[in-house]
């Protein structure tokens, strides 16, 4: 069943597929739980190796499930189709609670990890997330998200081959640092030159 649905083009791309006895809804839930961007029906179908029609039906079932239309609990989250894709969102009526939570939870100051990552981006821009991670030797996904959210960095371009997004710093950072251009960043080149040799493979 799995292989037909993706017309046998690339068996490898969906090695996972999912076992026949697993409901499409469950696999979709898994993907939606970690998806950052709205997911297209076709993309979801390919990802789990199920027919598009089945995915469409399952999405509708999930919407109803989370909305509590058949006596199930009306969840604190909801599944919405936005901009041609599906994504999990906080249900509207909890916006206030979540806003307050975000307000009290997000620190006003950047963490040491965020500052270091920002410094890496400032000196090596444009730079991909993978390259930052290699230099920092930690996963930087959430830190990069924070910096994006703070408007200190921006997505400069996407590498057409690898699809990797490259980040650059913004005017806001210059303002915060009190300088007019990146040229005014203090030179750390001696070490950078030495150090960078080790990062060529990044």
């Amino acid at each position: 069943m799995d292989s037909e649905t993706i017309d046998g083009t690339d068996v490898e791309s969906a090695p996972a597929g999912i076992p026949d006895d697993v409901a499409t809804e469950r696999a979709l839930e898994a993907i939606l739980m970690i998806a950052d961007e709205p997911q297209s029906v076709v993309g979801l179908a390919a990802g789990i190796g199920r027919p598009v029609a089945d995915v469409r039906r399952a999405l509708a079932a999930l919407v109803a499930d989370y909305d509590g239309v058949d006596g199930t609990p009306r969840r604190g989250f909801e599944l919405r189709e936005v901009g041609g894709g599906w994504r999990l969102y906080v249900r509207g009526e909890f916006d206030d609670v979540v806003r307050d939570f975000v307000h009290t939870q997000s620190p006003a100051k950047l963490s040491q990890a965020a500052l270091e990552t920002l410094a890496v981006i400032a000196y090596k821009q444009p730079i991909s997330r993978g390259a930052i991670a290699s230099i920092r030797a930690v996963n930087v996904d959430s830190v990069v998200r924070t910096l994006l959210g703070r408007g200190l960095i921006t997505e400069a371009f996407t590498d057409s081959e690898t699809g990797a997004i490259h980040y650059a710093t913004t005017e806001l950072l210059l303002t915060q640092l009190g300088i007019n251009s990146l040229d005014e960043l203090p030179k750390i080149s001696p070490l950078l030159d030495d150090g960078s040799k080790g990062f060529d493979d990044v």
Partner: protein
Amino acid sequence: MARSPEPEAPAAPAGTDPSAVAIDGAPDEMAESTEIAAEAPAGFRVHLATFDGPFDLLLSLISKRELDITEIALSAVTDEFLTYLRGLDGPDELEEASEFLVVAVTLLDWKIASLLPQGELVDAEDVALLEARDLLFARLLQYRAFKEASGWFATQLAAESGRHARSVRLEDRFRERTPELRWTTSLDDFAALALLAFTPREIPVVGLDHLHAPLISIREQAAHVVSLLRRGEPVTFRQLIAGADQKGVIVARFLALLELYRHAAVGFEQLEPLGELTVRWTAENWSDENLVNLGADYGQ
């Protein structure tokens, strides 16, 4: 605490000699928890990439020989180790040499404890001797325990790195509620952070801190030992190390002796277990040129 570790040792099968048990258990576990030479059925092999520290080596030597370390034939292990060192080549010699000194210190401690009761350690001090011996034993056990635990860490970290937690971009409607950014980093601090971030995390260092003495030349110490022995009279090991004020010097003289023994230049005599070790000059054709190559295995 003489024999206390064994009963609790998780790997200990029941009914065997307790002091041997913990180590008997070692070979199989070592094969799983370390990559040291486990796949080599015959011959002693240590892969440099995974060689890490003297205890590793001691453990693998011991587990391979399946010896009770409290009764171990130290000379056999030492010979084997020397052979191993001899087979080394490549750029790691310096590191090997320094690591070797650490191993040698451990071996020497051990030898002193088990075979060479010198000076005040004689007779009634047997108890203290046992304790010293068991201290090493306990250290090995402890090290092995951490090593096994590290296997659990590796498994858990690998398993968990495959897990996916929800961590998605904050919806725009919530972003506006993020408190205004308080920026407190100066330009110079910012540059310093960059420097920090770009500094390679793992700088290869030859670990010598734990040796509080400067590197000591085995060759020089061998020359000293040879000069004492060539007078013809048997000399005890205690006499050989008399006046040595650094542990490293003792180690080096000990190593020099082992090397000289390998060249058939000296013979050992020990009348009773734990008795005085007497060294005798036995070389028939000895020239000081032999000294030149002595210790070459240690990167000197």
